[in-house]
């Protein structure tokens, strides 16, 4: 290695060779680090923030996010919102979750809870609370969410139909209350909201059942036990034990309806108070009448049946007082609706087919032959009244078609008539001078008493000696009849004499039998013997 010119060239070639050999190590390290870093970055999913009312059960670095019980993320930090009203949990999700972080994705804290007859989240007793996720369907991506207070009743992907019911009140319904179809649990209430004219209840009907939600389906409160007291007596209705405890909704199609198309999604229905009301046919054909009663209508409720010989042909509407102008009378006006569709003409044509005029003539004819409206007690115990249409042997009244609604003539209730009769009887009884009568009666009784006293005094004085006399008589009679009395002795002697006489007579008779000649010749001498 002597030549002084070459070493640099050699060194350069060696350096060029050895440089990569040694520097390969940091290069590999850099590649490794880069790969690890890139992998970590690639594996890192999107970060989201979820707002909760409280951080109950949420722990930074511990609490998981789970979808269908698969962990898809973890809470990284929990912080308070600037206004201290909420808790903001920041969570990191797995990469695959990214497309599902959309507007209607829902988050809630899963912890043990007992609601609407179900117990859920028991596994969290052991594992600690976690955040449940329900993937949304919207196309709009989102990274900031508001957590739900309670788990959603229905998972976003479960098949079924979401419906809206309008009710007068929520009753005992709450989120999670069951929906029944033919007494099978068919869905759940997903929300109750206030509505301008009542309550808006959204329900979710699960898959096999949603096909029965036709456009004419009827929904009603199946809440608890329904005890109803009406003209028909007491009725108790329930759906299931669960609904007794927590209430619920039931639905069905009214009987006799032919196949109707399925209700479209988000169709709005009315939520009736009870099945009877729900199942009532909405009568298209109605006839309104007013009836004036001059008696108490206590016990007559709106909704009471209008009965024609046992068949309900309508129902009572409003009941109110009416002053008859000038007559100085206060009458009770009962409005009733009659459903002509329930009456069939003899020729098979429903009365709906009849024209107005025909109907009018018909009703006039009925009234002319004595048809009247009358209040009758349905039950003497409950004192409920119903309105009966019946024929009475009366004449003269007519339908007042001029009034609006037309006015049917009425008949006093049988009970009221009876009351009137009893009333007049009582009035007559009142006229009887009961006081005078009582005075007279008392006098009579007093004189009778006096008479009895007199008789007592007179008779008692006579009775004493008479009795003594009688006793004496009896005593002497006794003496007379006793065994040692002379009469007895005499009579006994006399009897003996008679017996002796009879004996002598028998001897004589015997003798005469043997010697009849003795009668003529006298007794023979005994010596001959």
């Amino acid at each position, binding site marked *: 290695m002597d030549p002084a010119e070459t070493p640099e060239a050699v060194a350069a070639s060696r350096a060029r060779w*050895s*440089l990569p050999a*040694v*520097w*390969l*190590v*940091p*290069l*590999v*390290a*850099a590649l*490794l*680090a880069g790969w*690890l*870093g890139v*992998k*970590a970055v690639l594996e890192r999913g999107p970060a989201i923030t979820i707002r909760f009312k409280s951080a109950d059960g949420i722990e930074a*670095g*511990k609490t*998981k996010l789970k979808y269908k019980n698969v*962990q898809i993320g973890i809470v990284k930090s929990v912080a308070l919102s600037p206004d201290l009203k909420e808790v903001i949990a920041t969570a990191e999700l797995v990469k695959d979750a990214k497309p599902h972080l959309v507007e209607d994705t829902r988050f809630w804290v899963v912890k043990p809870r007992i609601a609407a007859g179900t117990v859920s989240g028991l596994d969290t007793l*052991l*594992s*600690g609370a*976690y955040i449940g996720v329900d993937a949304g369907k919207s196309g709009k991506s989102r990274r900031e969410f508001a957590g739900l207070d309670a788990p959603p009743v229905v998972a976003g992907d479960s098949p079924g139909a979401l419906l809206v019911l309008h009710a007068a009140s929520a009753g005992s319904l709450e989120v999670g209350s069951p929906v029944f179809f033919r007494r099978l649990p068919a869905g759940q209430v997903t929300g109750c909201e206030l509505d301008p004219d009542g309550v808006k209840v959204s329900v979710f009907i699960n898959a096999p059942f949603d096909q029965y939600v036709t456009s004419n389906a009827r929904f009603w409160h199946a809440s608890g036990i329904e005890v109803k007291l009406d003209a028909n007596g007491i009725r108790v209705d329930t759906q299931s034990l669960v609904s007794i405890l927590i209430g619920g909704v039931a639905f069905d199609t009214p009987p006799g309806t032919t196949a109707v198309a399925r209700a479209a999604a988000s169709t709005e229905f009315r939520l009736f108070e009870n099945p009877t009301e729900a199942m009532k046919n909405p009568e298209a054909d109605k006839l309104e009448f007013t009836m004036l009663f001059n008696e108490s209508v206590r016990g007559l409720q709106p909704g009471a049946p209008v009965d024609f010989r046992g068949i309900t042909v309508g129902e009572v509407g409003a009941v109110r007082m009416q002053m008859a102008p000038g007559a100085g009378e206060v009458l009770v006006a009962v409005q009733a609706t009659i459903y002509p569709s329930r009456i069939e003409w003899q020729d098979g044509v429903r009365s709906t087919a009849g024209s107005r005029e025909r109907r009018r003539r018909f009703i006039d004819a009925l009234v002319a032959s004595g048809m009247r409206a009358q209040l009758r007690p349905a039950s003497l115990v409950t004192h409920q009244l119903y309105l009966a249409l019946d024929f009475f042997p009366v004449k003269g009244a007519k339908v007042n078609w001029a009034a609006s609604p037309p006015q049917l003539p009425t008949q006093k209730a049988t009970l009221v008539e009876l009351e009137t009769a009893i009333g007049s009887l009582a009035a007559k009884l009142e006229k009887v001078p009961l006081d005078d009568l009582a005075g007279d009666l008392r006098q009579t009784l007093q004189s009778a008493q006096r008479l009895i006293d007199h008789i007592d005094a007179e008779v008692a004085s006579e009775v004493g000696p008479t009795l003594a006399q009688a006793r004496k008589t009896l005593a002497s009679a006794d003496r007379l009849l006793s065994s040692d009395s002379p009469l007895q002795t005499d009579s006994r002697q006399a009897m003996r004499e008679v017996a002796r006489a009879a004996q002598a007579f028998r001897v004589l008779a015997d003798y005469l039998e043997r010697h009849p000649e003795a009668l003529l010749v006298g007794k023979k001498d005994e010596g001959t013997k």
Partner: protein
Amino acid sequence: MKPRKPHSLRRTWAFLVAAIILYVPANVLPVMHTEWLSGSEDDTILSGVIYLWSSGSWPLALVVFVASISVPLLKMAALAFLAASVQLRSTWQPRQRARLYRIVELIGRWSMLDIYVTAILVALVQAKALATIHAGPGALAFAAVVVLTMLAAMSFDPRLIWDAQRHGSR
């Protein structure tokens, strides 16, 4: 007497740079993935130290911190300092620097502590249903860091420290 190590400085630099590069993922990425009944958890070295510290095991936390974080860091710094001083032909305190080198070589293997712990845990805790522990990607990087720093220390020729002295005195 040992023969001089060829391309000592260059090699030292290469291993050192590699170690520094890998030190980042070693500390950022999880070294241990623990799964137990209620869930799973990823632990980096630092989070492990923090966990130990917050759960009250201060001595253990201190040991892990020193062995796994400060020792590799100090070792890399010391090697970088030595290599740089040789590169710059510094004549400052050759005796002290030689001692520093010896210390670095001595404590090198101690920083493998964390890897040992992880390896033992992975081997031991395999009760499938209840809990399992896997080594994370950080463990690989961390092991590489330790090995690389050891290699760097090995490839560094302490005689170079004195070379500058001789050049300087010449």
